[in-house]
């Protein structure tokens, strides 16, 4: 009998990935608001300042545009910066740099200049933080050519996506749903880099395909357990990467189950779910037994009151209900 392995949290997995990257490559450094002395707003970088010093764990002023732009320039200058933006909400203050520089410079320079930059940020709602602190804009960033968008939804991906993102010569935005930081799982002692462009089937099923990512994965798995009691076997797909999108894994599943339910914490209109829906229509329309269905955030600035916030977001019950109606209403 092997001894029980200690569990690792999503937060610890990220920290371990940061630590390993810093140890292995002197070009890697972390900068952002409160990443040093405070230990990171979500305590991801706690202890790293003591280990690596203020030159490589850089506290920045509240100047999102300047420190994201500095990350871009440092990447152009031969470093491998990791920029932490405290939350996606504040990334809007750096949108000019992300969109007009990070995403464009390689193309605009005819391939001469590249931006090997990783930008990490917390995302998502569900903590009663109200409209300005509850955005889920990863699908929106996935609209932009030149960027790669990853959404680690498991402890293993929290541990493994960062090294791959750092090895990537292009800018990678990593969205960490804030509700996941305390998620725990056993990690093998040799846990390390994972790919950042493939979707993963997190639960096998035959009745329908539930396609999701990030903070909604856990809700979808819970919903799948609810559905299983009624004999509905949901296959749950974790997109993992929102750009590029792994069409092949999605379509392979949908062609088999013939039903697709998309679950997205972003708003419904113009959402990533809309894009995936369109791709399914374009490539697997005649394989479907029912129209593609979606569970997305309600079209409202996320409200503070708990019951209203819950009503605004996808929940296991609403996901299960949408799945049941998708299965029941069509032959």
């Amino acid at each position, binding site marked *: 009998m092997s001894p029980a392995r200690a569990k690792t949290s999503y937060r610890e997995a990220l920290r371990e990935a940061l630590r390993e990257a810093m140890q292995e490559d002197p070009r890697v*450094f972390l900068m952002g608001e409160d990443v040093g002395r405070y230990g990171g707003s979500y305590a991801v970088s706690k202890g790293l300042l003591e280990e690596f010093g203020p*030159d490589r764990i*850089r506290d*920045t*002023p509240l*100047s999102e*545009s*300047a*420190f*994201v*732009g*500095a*990350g*871009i*320039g*440092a*990447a*152009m*200058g*031969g*470093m491998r*910066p990791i920029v932490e933006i405290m939350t996606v909400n504040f990334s809007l203050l750096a949108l*000019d*740099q992300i969109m*007009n*520089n990070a995403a464009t*410079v*390689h*193309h*605009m*320079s*005819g*391939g*001469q*200049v*590249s931006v*090997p930059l990783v930008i990490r940020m917390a995302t998502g709602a569900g903590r009663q933080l109200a409209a300005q602190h509850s955005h889920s804009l990863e699908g929106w960033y996935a609209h932009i*050519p*030149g960027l*790669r968008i990853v959404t680690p939804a498991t402890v293993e991906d929290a541990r493994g996506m960062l090294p791959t993102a750092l090895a*990537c*010569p*292009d800018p990678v935005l990593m969205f960490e749903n804030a509700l996941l930081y305390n998620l725990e799982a056993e990690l093998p002692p040799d846990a390390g880099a994972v790919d950042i*462009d493939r979707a993963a089937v997190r639960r096998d099923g035959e009745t329908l395909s539930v396609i999701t990512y990030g903070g909604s994965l856990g809700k979808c798995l819970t919903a799948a357990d609810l559905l299983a009691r009624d004999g509905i076997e949901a296959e749950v797909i974790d997109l993992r990467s929102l750009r*590029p999108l792994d069409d092949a894994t999605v379509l392979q599943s949908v062609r088999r189950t013939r039903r697709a339910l998309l679950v997205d914490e972003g708003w419904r209109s113009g959402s990533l779910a809309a894009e995936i829906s369109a791709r399914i229509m374009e490539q697997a329309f005649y394989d479907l037994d029912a129209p593609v269905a979606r569970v997305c955030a309600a079209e409202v600035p996320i409200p503070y009151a708990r019951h209203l916030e819950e009503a605004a977001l996808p929940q296991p019950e609403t996901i299960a209900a949408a799945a049941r109606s998708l299965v029941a209403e069509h032959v």
Partner: protein
Amino acid sequence: MSATAGAPVERTHALALLRDMIRVRRFEEKCAELYSAGRIRGFLHLYIGEEACAVGAVQALGPEDAVVATYREHGHALVRGVDPGRLMAEMFGMREGCSRGRGGSMHIFDAAARFYGGNAIVGGGLPVAVGLALADRMQGRQRVTACFFGEGAVAEGEFHESLNLAALWKLPVLFLCENNLYAMGTRIDLSQSQTDVHARAAGYRIPAAVVDGMDVLAVERAVREAAASVREGGPYLLELRTYRFRAHSMFDPELYRSKSEVIAWMARGPIVTFTARLRAQGLLEDADLESIEAEVAREIDEAVAFAEAGTPEPAADLLRDVYVEAAP
């Protein structure tokens, strides 16, 4: 403001500065002509009148230093050593262009010359310059990143964020503000509470100076001093007072300023005044000027010929260079 009138100048060096200013002027006049002929499209922002800034400043930088510029950057690119043929081919949208026809007039890049654009968002280049300097600092390299921007950028948050960060981290950034008085059509005193741009630096404890941007020798000297200060200890802000003789872009009817104002500034033009001064000092003969003009004309003819012989990139290659690494 420092002035250099009457100061001694070495002839070869003076002629090199004059030649560079004339190169920039004639190159841009050719661009305007080609724009009217429909060979260059998109936006075209001419630098005519401001040549002393780029020529004097780049002269004072070393080949290892980096340059970050704006969308009015043909002159900076030329004097930094970007090949004129590749520069013109870029404006023609050709594959042989320095950015493979992907950037055009506003996005000139040349990694070999450490010329990092060509940034067309006002203020957007400043944070990138801070990052280039940070990379140098962290890798122990004694290099300067020279960042050009207009006075319009001073109203942007990115200016203030970047000055603060560069000062806080003592980064080797040389902030070069080309103050041509107009942010597109809005005069500086109608848009900024403090019209002395260099005075902004004090709020960030950054050393600063102002120089006559129409005097190439004064610019060169000021940038040399500023760059030395940057190499020693951190950022520096130099304000270069200059004036744009032409419209903001090819679409600008110039309703916001008077002809007489433009004419008064043209009398102070960097080429006309430097030429007169060198003549007065006996350093420039008609033959010198003729030879410079002939040499420059030949260079521009060759650049245009190179661009005209260029090949449009096949549309099949449209998606190249969006990513370094193609997704599987």
